[in-house]
């Protein structure tokens, strides 16, 4: 049973999903309903956060003036209208509509390892939710995949109605080969505009040096490194004697995964994750670990509240 689980019974089987078709296993009806609620859910989730408790880089653009409101603790002092304060004796801040050209780029690791242990389903839904959240915030959302040494854009959208196209592209792009983050990430980073919200969704099962993230330094990029961590990888069960085949490279090794080895693998995986988390934070990215089994509603809430 362990072997069956480890060999990917929870992975999504490849199927021919033509253009314009959604993979019902990746995006079932319940998930689509959740996606349709994202535009309404995002403000509600924000409203649940106490004023002044959530760090934001600004509540709107510079030019789309909407009106004034009373100052609340945590408001940016730059937005205090001192003229009004001098004239009326009340401290108010200017309210501006968000700029519509806030760009969110979601890049998905498309390597074959993402196809095991339910990681593909979880990561595809996570990318779709991030895309939908970006669109709901009246920004520009871009979705791309890192696969076979290439960084391929999959979809771009500004309106909620354009989310479906992203889902269709995700459905038609199964994980395969290797991501080659060492080559693809620098290309993506070079193309990022300043101030872009950047999300990299990956299982990080790569020998690439996490220092590759340092290309983001000094570009005012914010966002998150979304780490999808399957228990089968990060805390394997003692499978006994196995012949393990790497899903990406096809390399086979004869192993004895007893309790001691399983613990050692878990420790190594933790150190690996810690290293990537450290580098992500050093360039201003949040490190967000997710389990494939997390409910989509929880993922949505975490993406809205934890991704800067």
């Amino acid at each position, binding site marked *: *049973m*362990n*072997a069956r689980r*480890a*060999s*990917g019974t929870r992975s999504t089987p490849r199927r021919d999903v033509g253009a314009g078709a959604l993979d019902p296993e990746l995006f079932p009806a319940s998930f689509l309903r959740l996606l349709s609620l994202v535009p309404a859910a995002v403000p509600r989730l924000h409203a649940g956060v106490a004023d002044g408790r959530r760090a934001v880089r600004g509540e709107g653009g510079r030019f789309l003036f909407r009106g004034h409101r009373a100052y609340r603790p945590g408001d940016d002092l730059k937005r205090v209208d001192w003229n009004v304060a001098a004239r009326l004796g009340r401290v108010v801040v200017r309210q501006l509509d968000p700029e519509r050209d806030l760009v969110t780029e979601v890049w998905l690791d498309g390597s074959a*390892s993402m196809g*095991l*242990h339910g*990681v593909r389903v979880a990561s595809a839904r996570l990318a779709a939710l991030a895309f939908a959240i970006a669109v709901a915030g009246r920004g520009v959302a871009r979705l791309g995949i890192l696969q076979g040494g290439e960084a391929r854009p999959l979809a771009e959208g500004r309106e909620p109605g354009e989310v479906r196209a992203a889902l269709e592209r995700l459905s038609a792009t199964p994980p395969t080969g290797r991501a080659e983050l060492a080559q693809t990430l620098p290309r993506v980073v070079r193309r990022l505009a300043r101030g872009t919200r950047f999300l990299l969704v990956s*299982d990080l*099962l*790569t*020998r690439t040096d996490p220092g590759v993230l340092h290309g983001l330094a000094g570009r005012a990029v914010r966002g998150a490194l979304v780490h999808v*961590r*399957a*228990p*089968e*990888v*990060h*805390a*394997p*069960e*003692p*499978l*006994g*004697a*196995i*012949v*393990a*085949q*790497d*899903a*990406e*490279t096809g*390399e086979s*090794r*004869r*192993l*004895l995964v*007893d*309790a*001691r*080895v*399983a613990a*050692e*693998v*878990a420790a*190594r*995986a*933790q150190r*690996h*994750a810690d290293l990537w988390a450290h580098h992500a934070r050093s360039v201003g990215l949040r490190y967000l*670990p*997710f*389990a*494939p*089994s997390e409910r989509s509603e929880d993922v949505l809430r975490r993406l809205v509240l934890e991704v800067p």
Partner: protein
Amino acid sequence: MSFAAPLGLLGLLALPGIWWLHRRSRAPRAVTVASLLFFTDLPSGSATRRARRFDPVLALLLLGAAAAAFAAAGPQVGRGASRRMARVVVESGWLRGARGYEAAVESALAGIRAELPGDVELDVVTVTPTASSPAYLETLARLGAAWQRYVIARVLPAAPRPGVRWWPLDLEATWDLPPGPANVGIVAVGVVPTDTGGLRVQTTLEASREGRGAADVTVVVTGPGSDGERLVAGTTTLQPGGAAGLALELTAEQRTAVDAHAPGRGLLRVALGREDVLPADDTVDLEAGAETAALLLDPGLESEVASALRAAAEAGGRMRLGDAARGPWIHVIRLGETPPEAAGVQALVVPAPSGHRGVAVPARAAPVRSSSPLVRDLAAEAGSVRLSPAALDAARGGTMLLGWRDGDQTWPLLVELPGGVLLTASLLDGRPPLRTTPFLPLLLDNLVDDVVGPDIGAGWRAHRLRPPSLTRLVRTGGGPRGVATAEAAPASLPAHRLRQPLLGLAALALLGAWLVPVAGALTGRARGLAAARR
């Protein structure tokens, strides 16, 4: 340590098979993993011999299988197991009264001792009923643990089964035979009133096959009392293996004298005027007017048992609550109670105490008149059934075996109590308890039959009338009306039996073998989930 069923140890041969199957099931399997990134420089399957040295699941499986195999072998430890003991069942009963019986038994025991190693003790079980069937004797020999099993019997089975050795009880070798048949006995008595107001006592005699030549045998009828008046006598001639009838008439005056001596219950004695090898069948007592028996209940008897006995006595009609002043009577006491003076006791029913571990009684073994499973505790001598003090002592300090026969089947009733004492369970116990069945009145009536003796006509009953098979000194088939007992001093303290603990250990080991992988999977999953959320 010893084993009741050593063949069970053959189950240990399954251990290598279990080991092989387990190893085979643990052969490397092909598993697709997300990445070998974290498996670099870890021990490979070919270099895991040391790591595989201890496998808890395999260890638990082997432990469970070994425990089950040992349990099947029925291991015993303790003093009982440390001493080798040979059980010898000796046919006894009325044969004990035969001349040369003791010498014949000693001779047989000496032969058995000579055959056995010197450190083997003999556990001699004496079976009191006369003419026990070979199957019953063999069953007694097979009871309990023993290193060797023997039966010393008068007649040996034609095709003995393995496991029990038969040894002949060679009475003839010790006899100093008188002229004529070796034994002559009274096998039937009848009483018929004569036209003149007297009594005609009809006696049937039989002779054993042993002996040479004919012999004149005198039959004497005497009056009541130990020194009763000689009333009438007659003589007949018997050949070895032959039979003869003799009718002796008492006059009306003699009959009147008998009644006057014991009003309401005339007493006569019919005896042979010849000494032979078996005196037990040479005398028969006749009694008139004994149709019912008094039922005496011990005050400490369990109320449920007492009520059932009382109701059954009333239903049967031949037994009623009474006192010992009139006989015959039947006394029911609690198990373990000291019986009344043995001399006055004619029958004792010993019900099992409440909560006593019962013995499954097959329904077809329920008593009927034709095959009465009377509860007779030990010595059936002198025509009465009584619990002898020696037998009671044996029950308290040793082993008492009680059983009865149902057709060809013998059902030993054996109940073990803490402290190493084995006590009998009566037929009032069992499943269903006899006291709750309609058969209890029949049982009591049969008891009355037993204590008052068989009806021989004209309101007279006979006591100490032996079956013809005894007179002939051979068995003719059939046992002694369903009940037999045996007693034996314990050879040693009862051994501690390890079967139950071993079965428990086997069950725990197998449960553990199942739980270990499950627990591993659960902890692994929990660990994985926690790690994924860190």
